[in-house]
């Protein structure tokens, strides 16, 4: 048995946010509404009360919130975007979020993930899109646990893989 635990950790809301990173005024406006600067560095995560903004690509962010529902968060963000060119899409049901924690969490994930999971290469508050075995995932380090965002149709495959890696590490 590896020293790791796998559980679901679904936030109430996940909302996709597409913004032109060159439109500083729009970024500021949306960030002000959320109460945080939007992440602009690759893999960065910024935090605000009850939520976080994950950098997924140069013009692609994912906003998650623990308390408000998807449609409320969409309304907030659309209000902030206003007449600017930005896309807000409710993705609350589009991905399941799994949490992996424990001493061996990184080793369990590294049975299937090729990116560097060492704290030097993947520090707290960092996010990356990658493959977990043959499933596309978003991976976020959240304190001493890892969050794996995966499409619901792949969730049972990913959970089975990680549970197998926890239960039966190679001798």
């Amino acid at each position, binding site marked *: 048995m590896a020293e790791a635990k796998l559980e679901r950790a679904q936030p109430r809301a996940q909302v996709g946010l597409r913004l032109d990173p060159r439109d500083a005024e729009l970024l500021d406006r949306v960030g002000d509404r959320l109460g945080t600067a939007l992440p602009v560095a690759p893999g960065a995560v910024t935090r605000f009360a009850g939520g976080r903004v994950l950098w997924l690509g140069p013009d692609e962010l994912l906003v998650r919130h623990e308390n408000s529902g998807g449609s409320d968060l969409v309304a907030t963000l659309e209000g902030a975007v206003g007449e600017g060119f930005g896309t807000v899409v409710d993705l609350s049901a589009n991905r399941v979020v799994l949490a992996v924690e424990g001493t061996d969490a990184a080793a369990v994930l590294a049975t299937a993930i090729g990116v560097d999971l060492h704290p030097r290469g993947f520090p707290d508050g960092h996010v990356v899109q990658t493959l977990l075995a043959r499933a596309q995932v978003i991976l976020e380090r959240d304190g001493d646990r890892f969050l794996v965002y995966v499409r619901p149709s*792949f969730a049972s*495959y990913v959970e*089975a893989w990680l549970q197998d890696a926890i239960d039966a590490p190679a001798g």
Partner: protein
Amino acid sequence: MSFRLDHGGSFIDRSRPISFTFDGVRRSGFHGDTLASALLGEGVGTFATSLYRGRPRGPIAAGREEAAAFVGVAGAGIDAPTMAPGLVPLAEDLVAEGHGGRGRLRAVAESRRDHAHRHCDVLVIGGGAAGLAAAEAASSDGARVILVEAQEQLGGWLLDQVGPVVGLDGATAEAWTREIEARLAARPEVMILKRATALGLYDQGFAVVAQSRRLWHLRARRVLLATGATERPIAFAGNDRPGVMLAGSALRFLRRWGVAVGRRVVVFTADDGAYAVAAAMAEAGIEVAAIVDPRPGPGQGAAALAARHGIEVLHKRAVAAVDGETGVEAVRIVPSGGAAGREELRLEADALLVSGGWNPAADLITHTGSLLRWDEEALAYLPPARSDDRVTTPVGACAGPDDPAAVGPRAAIWSVPPPAGRDEDECFVDLQRDVTLADLRRAVEAGLRSPEHVKRYTTLGTGGDQGRTANALALGILAEMLDTSPEEMRPTSARPPAVPAPFELLAGRNRGSLHDPIRTTPIHDRHLAAGAVFEDVGQWKRPLCYQRPGEDIEAATRRECVAVRTAVGLMDVSTLGKIDVHGPDAAEFLDRMYTGVFSSLAVGACKYGILCHADGMVFDDGVLARLAADRYLVSTTTSNAAAVLEWFEEWLQTEWPHLRVHCTSVTEQWAGVALAGPRSRAVLARLAPDVALDDEAFPFMTVRDTVVAGLPARLSRVSFSGELAFEIHVAGTDGTRLWDEAMAAGASQDIAPYGTEAMHVLRAEKGFFIVGQETDGSVTPQDLGYGWAVSKDKSDFIGARSHRREAIVSPDRRQLVALLPETRVVEGAQVALPGGADERSIGHVTSSYESATLGRPFALAMVRRGRERIGGTLRVTHGDGWVDAVVAEPVLYDPDGARRDG
């Protein structure tokens, strides 16, 4: 007779005997032995027989340089059809057998192997003196270092040294190694992988390393190759006899396992290093009959060493042959230089230790494409100082000899002509492949000059060891035969895996249910409960039909079709791809992508669309809904969901980056069901009592956001069956609830869940094509009779230009028609003209079903000039013969669309 000495053997624990079985005989060794050391200790000289010649073979090496004797191993946690005996750790109840030519694959019990990914600053491959020093230095400032060592013990050649070693500041090898290992172990960012072998080295510092139960994928900024050097054999008559061994390996058996490879040995060397081996043998009480050295004389140190141990040195001599059938009985020695009528000396001995010099074990660097080159001073093929990708640096003996001058005068000796009565076909170059001097001579006489060609002609170097010891030897011999320099011989490249690896290690956890993702919809549990038979659509499991007791698939499908045509059916359509297309240029973008016009679509309306590739052929199709002036919801086929999004992104990012459009996959945000059949409106009325559903308020091909079954929902009127139908989409997490509510609301209307097979029949009755079934990448919308979905007014769209090409508008193309055979034909059946002798195909069947609605079998087919043939009769292949079929319009059911509005 035991060849285990009563002293020495740093690896073995004589207090822990181990019993094992080899070739059916119970034998014993010690904890710490390898199979090779235990068998040699027991006096077993012959381990196996050779592949083609059936000659007896014993080990020529103590480890992975083995080229002669291979074994199959089972039990004690190992299950391998082919292993070098020196790499098999001895364990209680190990069962092994020598290869009778080749290995045997056994059915093995399932065992779990794993993969693991790690990154580091410096990867050091090889844990000998150079590797340890490199790892120590690299990690001293906290860098992440991974050290890979093939053995359980670190130290490499140091493990064969006793007393203080030159270059280690007066320390003994053991003390120095222990000190370095302790330092490395104390550094948290150092990882040492023991019993680990690099299978492959790839560009930019990616290495794949195998342990028995885990495959490591290592990514490093820098790679230091400290894999040492491989001793070269020499080709002479009988050099494959058990008892002929590389000198360094004989020393290893002595030092590590206390095993004498013979009682009276001859050493044949052109290298001072083997003098130390002779001295060590003498010190251990083994008689050294002579050192045979083709050089005029060794270096001073080597000469003194031989003198001190009273070992006779035969200068300017070479071993021409070994006598003995199953082992070494005597060694025949001739003057070197190979003059005819040579005087000959015959020395009785039971082992012959050979050293033809050393070659860097640099095969891994050639994996990355870097080449080895002959170095006249080192008399070896050396790797470059740095790999072509500038990441990998050979260090230590892998880079070449430190200082050629320090190891005495050097001479390269490759082969010795056989004496009278012996033949070149017993002078072995590649023992694993049974390739001899005679084979190489035949290749050269056939006109081959390139080592690559000779390799293919003779199979030299194509064994599991990839010619680790044979390659350099063969190059030297070829240079001599071709009367050129070894510099002209370009070494062949090694390839991964550097050593054989079991498939189950490569497979790792990717087996059984983890082999490939199985994707299921949010409603999957309900399908299971309803007795669904599933079909694979890409990685998805979709219900094919729902079997009731006593039904087969045909009966269930027939019942489901009837339900949709006469009552109401419910289908899970969650797998269909869904893309949110948003932005001020969304309409312009879709007009360019699709063959139809979408910019004029009213908000709240839906329209069918076809995507073509630039060649004008159908790529995908689906219904597009305009949700707002600047927002569309695009649906795709299940299989192409990801491909369509990539296609959109490719055009947006590479061709039209100025278009302000964002595409977002929302396939799994939504769970969807289709409610189809004349009673669908009645069922929906119960689910959504506040929504006006009559044809005027909610016409065909419209969409609205509303509430269904108490859930926020997107409701649309689309139909793939020709019947009155609705699609309901809710958040994926509400999918099960929507299904349950719909089934409950439809109970009084005889609602039946239906699967993909019924859906296929229903759509085929209406002449609707399916991408990938009627189309195969060579079919245009016009071929399918879907010219109405291609705009004549738009200036351009992807595929438009191809649609104007002469060959594409030709009436000779295959066109979609329906066929009405008297019996059901198979999909893929060929279509030909009726009667007569002309059996050439003019088309093929793309779909074929039994229709409950039509009361007959029918098919869809792509037929050359098909539309012209409507009303006529054609032949379709059927079993061994033919069946006639009437050609019909593809829409066989309700051609006027009267049923669409209920």
